[in-house]
């Protein structure tokens, strides 16, 4: 990992009075990702209300998550929390029979110091279902960091990689193939080819990618690496809990999302994996840099990558014409901001400010460096990065800067639109498919939507829809 983040980068830190989703929202996409899981959020009505409203329609599709709603008796310890959780988990086991139950600790469990980590192993023994504890609370984390806490907790459950056994297996496999050598010649040829491919792919040490992506996106990225003869040996999290990848000191790991710093740390320190610090595969530029970095670690020369990137940019042309020269303001709420800003700068946009809830300068080092280079190449100054932003101040700044587009949460989107500022709801970037070459278009689809909409409405003369504000109010 490079430590050459130059001094020209300016980081600011404001008051932390900003709007974002509570990290428990990660259950929304994780329960869909991990098919055999059940998420139990141990919290209050407030948490439940948030989830039910934030997830909207999904709630009616019999989701595999529920609230363990704490009542007054739980808070004042009149009820035994172990017994209570046991009762609920038994119920869940009976109704859904999941392969794993994930307890999401919340602010309340933190404050009343409920020992979830202590109770989980005991209950796990009694119940016969693995119980994982992730403290995804609003006291410590913002939005997507919830996934980080879950992945980090899950990293402990991945089986240990034992290379010897693996090798033996390969030998055995080829023995079996020899045994079947009476098969037709054609088939044999195929097997040999396959073996060759297999050998070729097997060259790189095991590589585990971490970050929850929709399965199509995950396989897109895997096949992107396969083109460069890099074999991905597993994903954390996998489609099913029972398919978690093996980890060990021979295993290389690489993140696909910028908010997974705890997971990265856990993988390095606790599972002794080797972390590949790369920019994140968001946008064609990011994807190329990501693949190049992985290949360089394995000593593989990339093939046709530049051409592939060019091709993608070529396909984006219509959207690029729309965004070129337009300005963006990231209010900051999901930690994807640095990567998205870098991509948009490369698209020719001007970024005024990158708000971000939390920035791990080590985990994001490669991405930061890449961003800086992008700015240099596009000959614009590196935008200011504001950690823990203050939404009120940001809105004041926005009034002066009048950006063409504000990427912001829903709390501010409508009021900003009423004041003539185009907005894009930031959460959509979390749920949309934005990774890899294939999905670059989707990112721009999102970014340009308000711009395209406004092309249609522009001449109607009612972009500002607020009553005259007399006071010095926002």
């Amino acid at each position, binding site marked *: 990992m490079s430590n050459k983040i130059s001094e020209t980068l300016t980081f600011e830190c404001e008051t932390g009075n900003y*709007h*974002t989703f*509570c990290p428990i929202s990660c259950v929304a996409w994780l329960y869909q990702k991990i098919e055999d899981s059940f998420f139990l959020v141990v919290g209050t009505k407030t948490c439940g*209300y*948030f989830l039910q409203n934030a997830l909207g329609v999904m709630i009616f599709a019999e989701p595999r998550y529920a609230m363990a709603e704490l009542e007054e008796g739980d808070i004042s310890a009149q009820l035994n929390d172990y017994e209570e959780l046991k009762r609920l988990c038994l119920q869940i086991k009976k109704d859904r029979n999941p392969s794993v139950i994930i307890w999401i600790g919340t602010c309340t469990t933190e*404050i009343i110091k409920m020992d979830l980590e202590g109770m989980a192993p005991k209950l796990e023994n009694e119940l016969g279902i693995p119980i994982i504890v992730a403290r995804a609370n609003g*006291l410590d984390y*913002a939005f997507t960091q919830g996934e980080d806490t879950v992945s980090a907790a899950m990293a402990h459950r991945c089986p240990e990689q034992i290379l010897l056994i693996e090798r033996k297996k390969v030998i055995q496999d080829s023995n079996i193939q020899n045994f079947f050598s009476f098969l037709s010649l054609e088939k044999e040829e195929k097997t040999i080819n396959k073996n060759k491919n297999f050998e070729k792919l097997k060259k790189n040490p095991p590589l585990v990618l971490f970050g929850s992506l929709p399965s199509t996106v995950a396989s897109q990225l895997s096949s992107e690496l396969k083109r460069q003869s890099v074999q991905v040996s597993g994903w954390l999290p996998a489609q099913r809990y029972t398919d978690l990848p093996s980890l060990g000191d021979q295993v290389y790991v690489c993140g696909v999302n910028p908010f997974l710093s705890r997971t990265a740390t856990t993988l390095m320190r606790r599972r002794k994996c080797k972390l590949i610090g790369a920019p994140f595969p968001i946008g064609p530029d990011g994807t190329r840099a990501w693949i190049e970095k992985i290949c360089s670690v394995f000593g593989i020369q990339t093939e046709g990558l530049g051409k592939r990137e060019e091709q993608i940019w070529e396909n984006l042309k219509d959207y690029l014409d729309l965004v070129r020269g337009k300005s963006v303001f990231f209010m900051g709420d999901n930690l994807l901001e640095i990567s998205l800003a870098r991509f948009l700068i490369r698209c020719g946009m001007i970024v005024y400010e990158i708000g971000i809830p939390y920035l791990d300068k080590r985990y994001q080092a490669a991405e930061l460096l890449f961003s800086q280079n992008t700015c240099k190449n596009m000959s614009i100054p590196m935008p200011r990065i504001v950690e823990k932003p203050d939404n009120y101040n940001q809105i004041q700044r926005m009034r002066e800067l009048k950006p063409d587009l504000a990427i912001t949460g829903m*709390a501010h989107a409508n009021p900003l639109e009423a004041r003539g500022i185009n907005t894009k709801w930031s959460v959509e970037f979390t749920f949309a498919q934005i990774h890899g070459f294939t999905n670059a278009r989707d990112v721009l689809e999102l970014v340009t939507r308000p711009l395209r909409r406004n092309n249609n409405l522009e001449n109607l003369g009612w972009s500002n829809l607020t009553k005259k504000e007399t006071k010095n109010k926002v």
Partner: protein
Amino acid sequence: MKLAYWMYAGPAHIGTLRVASSFKNVHAIMHAPLGDDYFNVMRSMLERERDFTPVTASIVDRHVLARGSQEKVVDNITRKDKEERPDLIVLTPTCTSSILQEDLQNFVDRASITSNSDVILADVNHYRVNELQAADRTLEQVVRYYLEKARRQGTLDQSITKEPSANIIGIFTLGFHNQHDCRELKRLLQDLNIKINKIIPEGGSVKDLQYLPKAWFNLVPYREIGLMTAIYLEKNFGMPYISITPMGIVDTAECIRQIEKHVNNLVSNKKVNYEPYIDQQTRFVSQAAWFSRSIDCQNLTGKKAVVFGDATHAASITRILAREMGIRVSCTGTYCKHDTEWFKEQVQGFCDEILITDDHTKVGDMIARIEPSAIFGTQMERHIGKRLDIPCGVISSPVHIQNFPLGYRPFLGYEGTNQIADLVYNSFTLGMEDHLLEIFGGHDTKEVITKSLSTDTDLTWNHESQLELNKIPGFVRGKIKRNTEKFARQNNITNITVEIMYAAKEALSA
């Protein structure tokens, strides 16, 4: 601990925030961890608010856990005071902050010394009251605060207005069709020559609260919010209040008669008589009375319906269906458990059974058991209806964005009766059309649906019996399925075959 997937009423602080942000120029500061300001998203999205929601958070983080909020809350209050210059700042505790047991009142006292705004601490217990109760309480608290302040300062004017006038209490943000209801009530009072004194909290200014006692009476259209305030005003200022919800023709008339009574109590010479107005409106302006008489509505006679929602809407709709349209309400219920007594009294004699619960699976199971022709409920019941192929009209919160229509859709008053008649009639006809389609083989390729929401079914249908079941027209399929399963259970059969189906049918007809 309670295993919960969904809830009808939100947490207490939501109620407080709804009241605070309904007033003009009132700012709420939540003492809450990051992400608890979800209220802003709801208000901005559901109500499509153009203005920034006047709610900010004084963030509770690790440092606050370790050392207490110290200056943080006070700083945030004084900062907001300078930035926005609100008339009132409401410090709102959340469930998280209430277990920290910090002395928030102390912060409020300190902050009010330096700030120009008034500062109060919302007095709600998060583990005992829900959103609706908290809203009711907060409104009363704010009103009490300003009336007592006016009394202390000697600016309280207790004389009533010359002309008859009324306060409307309980219209607020994120309320089910509240904006439209408010407009309809204003129109109604205008028709009766009654001036509107104040409408609170929506759009009201806290500075004007001291003029509340100038009205002749208070009108509290909804059961859930405003009653506490009305009772306070009655006790302290002798103001009468009307708590009959003017929903449906009969209740609207009853409400108007109450108004007549209160007005006539205070005028000495010119007594008013609203009976001709009621008659005119009922027979010719509102179409609902005529609709009940028309052959359309005749077709609905005896059709089964289920009603569920908040106390106000569920009770009123139940009475409208049963009394004004001749529909059989098989079950009616509410999630307002705190108001059970009142609710039972209201719907007595208008329904077969009553269900008081805040567990949506119980509601779902009840609907599956009764199999009504139509449901009138919340968004949750709409989804249950979708799953069971039963049409549903949404009559109460919790609601989605489509229940904040841009068009004029009151539920109260005479226009409200028209809207409700449309809603009811459309729900039923849609159901009929669907059945006709099924009878004539419109779309019969659907998978069999499980009628029960609980996951306790222990019976399996083999392939042939599944196919056989699919052949049965949709509108009786559920019934046959259930009868078969009942028969199977009685005879300890777990695997259902075509033979079992026939056996069940024979057993039933025998």
